[in-house]
């Protein structure tokens, strides 16, 4: 479960203060998929970064999987990300000096898992990349890189999987493949999935859609509007069906 209570983000820029997120209260139930949409500069990525513990809110409280992020220091946040939060980026962000397999192994090694190599191999098999494990990122296509990134994000069976425009840098067919994998993980393992996307079709597949504009929630489809206590509501049957339909 992801909870945000009165979360704001204000940055100091040259001219003065700029409010990126206005007070925001939001709950995403465990096992759900949520899509965050909105125009450029609406605060989507900032919101995702806050949930990932990559940045600290100016005020408010964030709880992910029963851990209050806002109380943790940088090192504890890193450990939390390693064990409970998986992140997939638009630009993949694989470590260029490591092979695909080694990229997947890193979070397992950080968690001191003795079976790092075998588990990484099976994760790569899950994303159909068994035969590309020894390739470096520069030798992989965009879709392949993103699949490696997903395998890496799932390495430690995170409770929460965050994806920042995961298909933004891919052609539509490859993008669809990636989406299938993400939704499949959600369905099979009950991993809470939060997507930031521009793509209305993709957003429609989520249980919940949170539309941001100028740092405020404009509309929370399937959930109650933010501002007071809110919780994610079950998404429509159409959206769920759509998730399994590659034609959407």
């Amino acid at each position, binding site marked *: 479960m992801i909870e945000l209570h009165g979360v704001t983000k204000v940055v100091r820029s040259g001219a003065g203060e700029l409010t990126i997120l206005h007070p925001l209260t939001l709950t995403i139930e465990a096992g759900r998929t949520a899509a965050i949409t909105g125009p450029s500069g609406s605060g989507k990525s900032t919101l995702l970064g806050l949930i990932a513990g990559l940045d600290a809110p100016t005020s408010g409280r964030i709880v992910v999987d029963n851990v209050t992020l806002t109380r943790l220091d940088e090192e504890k946040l890193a450990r939390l990300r390693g064990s409970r939060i998986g992140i997939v980026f638009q630009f993949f962000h694989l470590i260029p000096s*490591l092979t695909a397999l080694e990229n997947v192994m890193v979070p397992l*090694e950080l968690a001191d898992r003795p079976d790092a190599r075998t588990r990484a191999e099976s994760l790569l098999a899950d994303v159909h990349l068994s035969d590309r494990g020894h390739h470096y990122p520069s030798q992989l296509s965009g879709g392949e890189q993103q699949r490696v990134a997903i395998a890496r994000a799932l390495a430690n069976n995170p409770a929460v999987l965050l994806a920042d425009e995961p298909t933004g840098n891919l052609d539509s067919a490859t993008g669809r493949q990636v989406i299938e994998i993400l939704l499949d993980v959600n369905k099979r393992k009950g991993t809470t999935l939060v997507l930031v996307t521009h793509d209305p079709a993709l957003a429609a597949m989520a249980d919940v859609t949170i539309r941001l504009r100028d740092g405020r929630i404009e509309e929370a489809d399937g959930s109650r509007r933010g501002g007071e206590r809110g919780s994610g509501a079950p998404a429509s049957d159409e959206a769920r069906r759509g998730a399994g339909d590659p034609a959407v």
Partner: protein
Amino acid sequence: MFILRMVWRETRAVWRRLLFFYICVAIGVGAIVAIRSIIQNVRVTLVGEARAIFGADVMASTSRPWRPETVQAIEQFLQGRPVQYTSVVETSTMVRPEREDRPAARMVELKAVEPGFPFYGRIELESGQPYRHALLADGGVVVQRDLLLQLGIGVGDRIMIAGQPFTVRDVVTREPGRQVSTFTLGSRVFIDLQALRQLNLLGFGSRASYRTLVKVADDTDAPRLSRALGRAVRDEFVQVRHYRGTEAGINEDLARAEDYLSLVGFVIVVLGGIGVWSVTRVFMQQKIRSIAILKCLGASGRQVLGTYVAQMALLSAAGGLSGVLVAYGALAAIPEYLVALLPSGRPDLTLSASVQGVAVGLLVSVLFALVPLLETRAIKPLLLLRADTAMQARRRDWVAWASYAIVAAGLAAVAAWQAGSLEASLYVMGGLAGVGLVLHLASSVLVRAVRPLTRARAFAVRHAVISLGRPGNQTRVVLLTVGLGAFFILAIQHVQANLLNAFSLELSDDSPDMFLIDIQRDQEAGVRALVDGRAIEPAKLIPVMRARVVGVAGRDVNLEAYDDVRRRGLGREYVITYRSHLEANEVMQAGELWEGPVPDGGTPDVSIEEGIARRGIGIGDRMRFDIAGREIEARVTSIREVDWSEARNGGFMFVFRPGPFEDAPRTFIALVRAPREPAARAALQRDLITSYPNVSAIDIREIIRTIQGVVQNITLAITIVGVIALGSGMLILIGAVAMTRFQRHYEAAIYRTLGASTRRLTAMVAVEYGVLGTLAGLLGAGGAVALSWAVTTRLLEMAWEPAIHIAAIGVAATAAVVLMVGLSASLDVLVKKPLGSLRGE
């Protein structure tokens, strides 16, 4: 484990980019290991041969003829003890070939020995036969090869020593304790002691050293015997020493030399460290994203820092080990003629030098890498989502300051360890910090000075200057290191130019260029007559006596015994004279010079040189002198300053008022302006020693040539250091270009897309490095001019002239080298097709 695995993976992927890191460490370590190994080899050899060099277990020596009572005391002491002893006398004199058709005459160092000589060590002869005293019997001598060459004679020919003929029986190739490299007045000639005594060479005023060598049955007795003999002799001018003291002395001197010279290596390692710092800095900039990813995946700051510190340590260790190989190669590559100067022969690598070198390389490079590595702490994983947060200007927090302090303290500690002295390390660190600061400020000023060129009309110039200020530029680091290298080389060239200039000036002016010494009173008129008409102007004869200070009764200083005098630094023998005028090279500092001789019954007056005055002696003090066995008390009435660089007109620490010495035994020295033509010069020397065999002629021109040779050797040594420093600078330059290659590829691609031709891009790069090189050259030349001024005028106290041509050549050469290196390192940027670069980004 995670850290080690990451180190391996990272190194596997990026080792090529870190090659410069590796080379920087290797060169510095190589320098330390080579220097230490050479000196340790020499030390082991010399200490091992200490007794052979010393020639005895115990030795009594004096620089004045033995007093009969001293000889008696020594003989009494040694007789009845289980020892052997023998006497040696060394003196210098002139020799010439017996044959009249050879007009040469040469100064030699005579060593007169008895049958027991040598107790230790071996005299090696060119003929291969063992040395025997019989070779010296019946008018035989053994000489060095170069004397035969100088005189144009061979083995079996005869030479004239003090008017007597001697037959050259063999050529000595090696004498224990006498190195080819040692400065000597002349070639060695071995002669029988009895034969020397029959020559008229040890008479009054001659300079000779007298030694009694003692060999004991059990060498552990040496120190005790030495002390007992010292007590028994009770002659204040006799020194009794034992070989173990010499051994300890050699050991200590060389250990100190090793430590101080290792500082040269340390400085090179620090230059390498600067390279390490710059490579690490750029490397870390390129690693920002990977580090953010690692942090995003849950790696702690400590794990990330640990990974890169371990990686740098691994590379440093590898670089250090290659440095040992470099040193091995360097030792093997020393040319034969230089090896011949080392008593140890070709030096081997020593374990202790290798271990120290690798350890210093590791410590220094990790310390230097630490500063940029600590910046990984500031990398936020958020930058993966928002690129604008990549590198926020970060305040230097206390951790950063503490790390700088630790790095500085660490470097000082390594320097102190290397120098074996905290003081020396603080000087070196202070010097480095000072030079670094000055170069840093100067490079800021220079970079600012060319900034107006960013509005230049020429495209290439405009963009080249903009490039110098591009983010992540290495301009200052390159200026610092290349400037430092140029500075070393130019400074020593500058000092050398001034030194050689000074000497050649003195050779061309109207000063005397030949000294005649040991002229006896009855030879004064004869020598004068012989020289007149052949020399350029009449000879100037100065009466001289040899004296020792034996006591001082003064306001500030009171020295009762000779031992006190020696401790004051006044213990040596002085050559003194008397006259009633100042010479051209003298200036009166205090007091007044007397007029005329000392009145009957009056106290003698003495004028002292300011060097003596600096030891606490002033006007009005009374000094006691031992002059040829007679004690004279004199009152100090004036203090003179002598310009020693003009000392060919004579320079004396003590000048007496005439009077008391009219009947005293004295000799004369003559200052002669000898003819310039070598043949006439040689003939004059030959005729002089034919008529006056005891007189020696010292040819200043030859001595100056020797000194010029020494200056050139020292210059060569320092130039090598400068070349290594400049080499480090070049490496850093190449490293800087290579490290920023991706950015340059990208920029070049954009310029090309916008229509820039290869020629234009090349011009841009050329101007950029041309400007950089010129700035570095200006820095180096400016520093060199300042340093050479300081060294020449303050340290050497000589006239200084700016050697403009050296500075100009230096600036041009530095600019050219940097331009070439920069251009060739950028070649691939200039030829790569733009699309690949743009896609790659």
